[in-house]
């Protein structure tokens, strides 16, 4: 038994600490870890309280042992893989919904709570949470810490975080937002001093472990509706989304190209086989009778307002050459697509089978996942098509959605690797080599910033004094760099 195991055994009962190789193996890789690159931790612990986490970090800090926190759900970016070994803190047993405050519209949750659990509870109360396209078993707290895409991104900004409770190795327990004041509650992100919630957001577990978060929730309103509009090209779809969002007509608008939409039809039919047409060489041109893409707008509020908003959406679409469908038409023409979007945007529950089901048909690899200024997105889209035609095998497609009231766009261009991964091993390695330079080129040439950090220290190095300040803060809260060092952020 290692010294570390002995020390941590004083904190965790024996059924919540393990150094059994078999148990450790479960934590050694995720969808992002290349074949042959798995790394196992030395120990896994299952904390139940903030106090246990405090003790864990004190011991790890003293012993200079890396700690990788892991909440629950999809992992496709290697963020919770202990690439430098050490301890994995699996937070699944910290799974309480502590409070749902309908009056102040927030929920106070622990990291082990899942989207399924939170959305179900909120549904009972007529509320809704920000739903990204991660699996329903994912942790809202962990997902929100990384600025998710989802159903309220246009109107409310993709930032549902308010106050946090964070345990750090050196600085102890920090409460941010209004919770910094003992009597002020968890309701607000901002007060009279700088915003520290934002400091921890997108820190990927490198500054501490978040043990509680107050997150925004949304009143469902009297009416909720989707408007689906087909477009034959990307530029008018972009204009459509910008107009809707800037004029405050929709809470969220997304544009999905034909291949992605076909996936939804495939999911509804429970087929695991991609239709031949999705594998055709020319991926830019949809099959006859299929629109290039579909924009879906979520509207909600008083019925009279939603009626008027819907009419306005249709009018704008018509001006731009789009073709809006009413719900009945959409259900009939694109049943899979409609069901998927209706579940997310109207019912407020992760579709099941969900986004992850697409992976049954192939390995989902984000070729490009970034945010960019609207004016640059058309150039980025062209750049990605050109790259894809040169380097990717079909199928590949993208979706785009406005963030921050249309000031920037999220753009996800993905490639699916189908068939046996043994046969595709060389192709996968080739893709990996392309991705190395891709984000740096997109930043340099088009100002596109990677949506989530992808372990490229050079990218962080481009931030100048901002990065320097962050490094100093890191030194203060985690001087021994024990917090998720595998992210290569510090």
């Amino acid at each position, binding site marked *: 038994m290692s010294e570390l195991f002995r020390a941590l055994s004083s904190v965790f009962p024996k*059924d919540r600490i393990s150094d059994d190789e078999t148990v450790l193996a*479960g934590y050694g890789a995720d969808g992002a870890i290349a074949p*042959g690159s798995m790394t196992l931790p030395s120990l896994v612990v299952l904390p139940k309280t903030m106090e246990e986490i405090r003790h864990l970090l004190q011991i790890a800090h003293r012993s200079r042992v890396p700690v990788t926190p892991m909440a629950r759900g999809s992992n496709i970016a290697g963020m919770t893989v202990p690439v430098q070994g050490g301890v994995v803190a699996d937070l699944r047993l910290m799974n309480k919904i502590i409070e749902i405050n309908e009056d102040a519209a927030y929920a106070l949750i622990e990291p082990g709570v899942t989207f*399924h659990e939170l959305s179900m509870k909120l549904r009972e109360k007529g509320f809704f949470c920000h739903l990204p396209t991660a699996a329903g078993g994912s942790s809202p707290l962990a997902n929100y810490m990384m600025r998710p895409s989802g159903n309220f991104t246009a109107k409310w900004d993709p930032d549902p975080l308010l106050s946090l409770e964070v345990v750090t190795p050196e600085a102890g327990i920090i409460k941010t937002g209004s919770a910094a004041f003992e009597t002020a509650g968890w309701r607000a992100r901002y007060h009279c001093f700088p915003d520290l919630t934002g400091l921890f957001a997108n820190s990927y577990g490198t500054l501490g472990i978040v043990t509680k978060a107050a997150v925004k929730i949304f009143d469902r309103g009297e009416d909720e509706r989707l408007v689906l509009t087909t477009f034959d090209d990307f530029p008018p779809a972009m204009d459509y989304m910008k107009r809707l969002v800037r004029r405050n007509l929709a809470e969220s608008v997304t544009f999905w190209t034909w291949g992605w939409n076909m996936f939804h039809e495939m999911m509804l039919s429970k087929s695991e086989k991609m239709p031949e047409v999705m594998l055709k060489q020319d991926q830019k041109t949809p099959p006859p009778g299929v629109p290039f893409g579909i924009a879906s707008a979520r509207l909600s509020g008083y019925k009279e307002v939603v009626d008027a908003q819907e009419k306005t959406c249709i009018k704008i679409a018509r001006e731009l050459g789009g073709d809006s469908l009413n719900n009945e038409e959409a259900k009939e023409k694109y049943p899979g697509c409609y069901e998927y979007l209706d579940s997310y945007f109207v019912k407020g529950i992760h579709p099941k089978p969900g986004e992850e089901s697409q992976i049954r048909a192939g390995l989902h690899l984000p070729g490009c996942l970034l945010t960019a200024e609207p004016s640059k997105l058309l150039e980025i889209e062209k750049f990605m098509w050109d790259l894809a035609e040169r380097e990717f095998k079909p199928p590949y497609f993208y979706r785009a959605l406005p963030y921050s009231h249309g000031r920037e766009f999220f753009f996800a261009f993905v490639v699916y690797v189908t068939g046996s991964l043994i046969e595709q091993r060389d192709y996968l390695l080739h893709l990996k080599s392309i991705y190395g330079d891709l984000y740096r080129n997109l930043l340099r040439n088009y100002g596109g910033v990677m949506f989530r950090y992808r372990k490229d220290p050079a990218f962080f190095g481009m931030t100048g004094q901002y990065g320097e300040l962050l490094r100093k803060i890191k030194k203060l809260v985690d001087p021994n760099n024990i917090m998720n060092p595998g992210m290569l952020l510090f």
Partner: protein
Amino acid sequence: METRFNISEDLYTAMHKCIRCGQCGYGNEEARFSVLCPMQIKGKYFTYSAGGIMQIARAIYEGKMGFSESVRDLLFQCTTCGACEINCGIIGSQVDLFTLMKRELVENGIPLLEPHKSIVENILSKKSPYGGRLPARTEWLSDEKKDSMSSSPEIFYFVGCVSSYMETEIPDAFVNVLTKLDIPFAINDDEWCCGAPLYFAGYEKKTYDMAKHNVEAIEKSGASKVVFTCPTCAMVFKNYYPRWVKRPLQFEVLHATQYFERLQDEGRLKLGPMGAQKTATYHDPCHLGRGQDIYDAPRRILNAIEDLDFKELNLSRENSFCCGGGGLLPTGFPGFADELARIRVSDMEKTGADLLVSACPACKENLKIAAKKLKRGAKAIDITELIDQSLQ
């Protein structure tokens, strides 16, 4: 000893596709908030899940660890219920992949758990998983009914080991029904184990002889249909026998509920009252539901019984929660199997049912034991017994 891991392309692809999302443990549709994977009920770590096993396979393949008794213990806590296959959006063939890993455990010299070792030895020597002095296979069959067997049968009844030796009320009821309906049938006095326990223990090659023996006996009978009251036997016949005998089967494989549903449709089976008003709920056996996609037939039968008030369980159909009776769990980890059966009995009793109906002898046995231990009044019963009682 150096680890050898002969991996299939499917397993290689699956273990690299798994994104550890954890969906494999949850139900579908309205059961999306319920944990259906029995391993996840037991184990707190992520590793106790289908996704966790995928990572173990990968770690072994990458040489980070070897096969061990600890890997064996985790693999044999999987009941092969197949909930992960339905709920994982990514892979969908987990049970076969886990069985492939069990085969590799054997190849790497990892000993089976003692009870499983006995089962394998018994099957190889006595053609049945049970040890000790066994009665004749068809001891449950009265001489009178033996006489009613036909040399030109309409169906061949494959009884299965659990029914032959443990839950004999089931085959007795099945034959009663056939006799009442004047359906000529055949049973093999020298039936061998279907091979499922060998397969699920990692000894697939040793099933070949079992399959050959059983198939030859059936074909010799001239029956065009084989009917099973055990869904596991039916599932291995359907899904694995063509591979094990290396040719397509020359007969149709039907579970009893499918066969009875067909007789209902043909107007040959008419169900009336049982004689006393009862409330029943139905537990979908994993190898019948998720294993063969048979959900409606048992419900049609239960709804046709006049004085039976049928109540649907909260976790049912493809979201059924395993009773713990499968995957060699009751012998390998009896405490865990018992825990699962108690959960299921409690779920079933919440419906207010007097009768806990299933369509599988192993499920009936596990539910019966749990109900007794819980000192509950509800009775575990097989659907075939209900048909026998309500046949007009």
